[in-house]
Each structure stands twice: as structure tokens, then as C-alpha cells.
């Protein structure tokens, strides 16, 4: 009897040890293709498997809704017909895009589709420098004033077309993080084509470590950020570009000039709890350059933090990231 009691205590202790080890290791991951890139999702904890499946479904649903290239998407139909009765997701996202357009003084713009097309930055097109005439014509169609939102009715001016490539992944990442929270997942890592989002802390309770790619060498890093519950998004001229007559032309188009942005930056990384804002601002700040971005930061330091790499390879970080950023390189701090 005594033996049985001791045995059962020991058995339960071993079982508990076993289960805690199992639970710690309980991990679900998925890697799949959507939004013209690779999505990689890892979640930890008991509910992780169903949460990952739900997230994958949600991302694929949003891809079908927001893709510029998918003929059945709302955005494709809007670009073709210049008028649609849009779903709640599309309306929400377009409204946010308009807000970011205002916030960045037009640097973040979703009406760049005709310009991006002229430069050939869509799959199936040849990348090339367009004629000045083509650029001038495309520039006439650019700007948020060409979008009209009236409840669910969205209309575009003639020849205006939208591309949500600079914001859709951020929106999908926010939705994914939300699904994880609803499913009780307190530890997860999401990378939507290099847009990183961390949920909670690492399974052992420590901060997630997110490295920022060195614009000059993909295998190196500019530094790392120790973060939890936040999105980390980088826009860089190194991500997509082509060379013509010895010049390098990248994919982040400045709607002032119609040419790839020449703002003195190689990359901008935005850190924010708001995934959609992080995605949009990484492009917006890249176009704005260091000086204008610093001014925007001083008024909005509660919204986001940022890491800049300039053409001269100088690194600047905003002062709200001082305790989070570490690097082997020298860096300057932008005071708010």
C-alpha cells in the first residue's frame, strides 16, 4: 500500500516532467506561398496547430481579396472597372492607406500601380527605364485624391490604379497576430516575406531577437532588435532592382518624380505594435529620407520606432529603440 503510494507519486512526478517538456516543445509551423512571396509561421503552445491553420486560411483569403494580379480579387476588379462595392476588409485597408498618405505627406501612396507597371516591376514584365513621356502620363493618375470612398462604394478616377503591395502584408500580419491571441497562443513568430511579427515572448519567456538585414550583404546584419508583441518591417532598395547602362534602379518609386526614390537611404526598418502602420511607414519613410522622417518621428514617437541605414552606411535609430537595439557597428540616436 505504502509502496503503491510512493510509486504513484513518483510516476506522476515523471509524468508531469514529461508533459511540461512536451508542452514546451509543442510547436506548429507552416511555410507556404502567398502574396507573391514566402510566408513562414511558427506558434508554440497547446493550441498552436489549429491557430496556424486558421492563420494560413486567413492569409490566403486576404491574398485573393487584395492581389493586384489575381483576376478575381476586389483590387483587380476595382482597377479594371474603376468602381466596386467592396468588402469590409478592403474598405478598412483603403481608409488606413489614405491616412498613411496624409501622415507621410504623400510619400506612402497606393496609387503607384501605373508607375510600377511602367518600370516593369510586376512578374511577367521586363524591367526597364520608361520614357519621360510615359512617366509624366503615369504621374497624372497618382495621388490619394483620385480615390473616392463612399461607405462601401469605392471609385477611382480614370486611369488610376491601386497596388496594395506596400500595405497588404502588414494587414495580413495584424490579422494573423489577432488570430493567435484569440486562440490563446502566447508565443509565435510570423514572417510574411520578410515582414516580421512576434507574438508575446519566446517560449522561455525571453525577448525575441530580430535581425535587420545588411543592405550590402544579405548574409550579414546591421544589428538586432530585442522585442515582444511587435511588428518589424524593412523596406530597402536592395530588395528588388535592375541595372541599366551602369545605373541601378530599385522598386520603391517616389511619386513626386516617378523615379526610384533617391532619399539618401539604403533601408528603413519600422518597429510598431501596429503591423499595417509598420508596413506602410517602412516605404513612406524610405521615400521621405532621414531628415523628414526624423521630424515625423518627433511628433509620433508613441506610434513607432525606426532604424535607418544611409547611402554612406551610417546607422541611425530612434531614441525609443535605444534599449532594444544592439549592433557591432557604430550608430547614432535620433532624439524625439
Amino acid at each position, binding site marked *: 500500500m505504502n509502496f503503491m503510494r510512493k510509486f504513484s507519486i513518483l510516476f506522476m512526478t515523471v509524468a508531469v516532467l514529461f508533459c511540461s517538456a512536451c508542452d514546451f516543445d509543442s510547436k506548429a509551423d507552416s511555410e507556404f506561398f502567398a502574396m507573391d512571396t514566402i510566408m513562414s509561421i511558427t506558434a508554440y503552445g497547446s493550441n498552436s496547430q489549429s491557430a496556424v491553420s486558421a492563420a494560413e486560411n486567413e492569409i490566403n483569403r486576404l491574398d485573393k481579396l487584395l492581389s493586384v494580379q489575381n483576376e478575381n480579387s476586389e483590387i483587380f476588379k476595382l482597377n479594371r472597372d474603376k468602381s466596386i462595392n467592396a468588402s469590409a476588409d478592403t474598405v478598412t485597408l483603403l481608409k488606413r492607406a489614405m491616412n498613411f498618405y496624409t501622415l507621410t505627406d504623400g510619400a506612402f501612396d497606393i496609387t503607384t500601380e501605373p508607375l510600377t507597371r511602367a518600370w516593369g516591376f510586376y512578374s511577367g514584365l521586363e524591367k526597364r527605364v520608361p520614357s519621360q513621356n510615359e512617366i509624366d502620363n503615369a504621374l497624372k493618375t497618382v495621388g490619394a485624391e483620385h480615390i473616392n470612398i463612399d461607405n462601401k462604394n469605392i471609385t477611382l478616377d480614370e486611369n488610376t490604379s491601386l497596388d496594395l503591395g506596400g500595405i497588404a502584408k502588414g494587414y495580413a500580419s495584424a490579422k494573423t497576430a489577432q488570430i493567435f491571441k484569440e486562440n490563446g497562443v502566447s508565443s509565435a513568430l510570423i*514572417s510574411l516575406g520578410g515582414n516580421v511579427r512576434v507574438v508575446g515572448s519566446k517560449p522561455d519567456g525571453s525577448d525575441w531577437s530580430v535581425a535587420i538585414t545588411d543592405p550590402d550583404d544579405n548574409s550579414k546584419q546591421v544589428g538586432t532588435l530585442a522585442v515582444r508583441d511587435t511588428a518589424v518591417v524593412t523596406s530597402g532598395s536592395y530588395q528588388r532592382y535592375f541595372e541599366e547602362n551602369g545605373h541601378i534602379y530599385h522598386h520603391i518609386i517616389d511619386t513626386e518624380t516617378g523615379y526610384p526614390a533617391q532619399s539618401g537611404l539604403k533601408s528603413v526598418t519600422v518597429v510598431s505594435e501596429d503591423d499595417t502602420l509598420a508596413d506602410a511607414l517602412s516605404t513612406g519613410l524610405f521615400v521621405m529620407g532621414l531628415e523628414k522622417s526624423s521630424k515625423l518621428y518627433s511628433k509620433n514617437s508613441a506610434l513607432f520606432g525606426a532604424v535607418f541605414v544611409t547611402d554612406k552606411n551610417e546607422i541611425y535609430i530612434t531614441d525609443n529603440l535605444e534599449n532594444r537595439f544592439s549592433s557591432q557597428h557604430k550608430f547614432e540616436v535620433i532624439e524625439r
Partner: protein
Amino acid sequence: MKTRTWIIILSSAVIVCAVLWMFILNSSSPSKIVGIYQDGSLVEKIDLNSVTDEREITLNGKFGKNIIFISHGHIEMKSAECPDKICVKHGALEIGGTPIVCLPNKVVIQFEETPYGADAKTGAAE
């Protein structure tokens, strides 16, 4: 009888702990284990350090063949029938570098651990 039972129980507990411990240690040590994925599912896992003979793996995708070349400590996309050839131009898979990706044929070659000492890297995959 009682003592013997205790010895058996305790030693099996020790063995269980040791196995778990080794499993945890093993999974967190840096390695050169590479995963080859097609359309999200694992095709093959290879420890590049234990490769002795050179070999090739051929995958068939929507846009034709991808031929992967493997030798000791080395893996690359040798050739591909995809339209953009970005996967071939990537060159060998480097520690800390970006994965080799063929978007048209949905092939990914990557390290199973993140050897750059961080959990994730931004802006890398585009």
C-alpha cells in the same frame, strides 16, 4: 523486492531525463542541417556536414525542373527551368544568408536552424 523496484524506477527516470536533456541540447546546437521544401512540404532534410559524395536532386514544378546540387558543406540550385532564374543566381546557401527560393516553382532551400543568432531576419525574403 522493494529496493529493486525502486532502483528500476529511479534509473528509468534518470534515463528519461537524460534522453530529454540530450534532445533539447541537440535541437539548440548550431548545425548545417538544410531543409528542401516544395509547395510548403518537406522534400528532404540533409546535414551538409555529413555529406561525403556529391549528388543532385531533381524537382518537377509548374515551370519545369529544378536541379539542386549538393556536396560536403555545400548546396546550390544548379539549374532551373523557371522564367526568372533568381534561384540559380542566388548561388550557394550561406550561413546567415537568405534562403534559396524559386517562387515560380515554389521551392525553398533553407537552414533548419537560424545560424545568425537571431530568431528572425527582416527584409530578407523578397
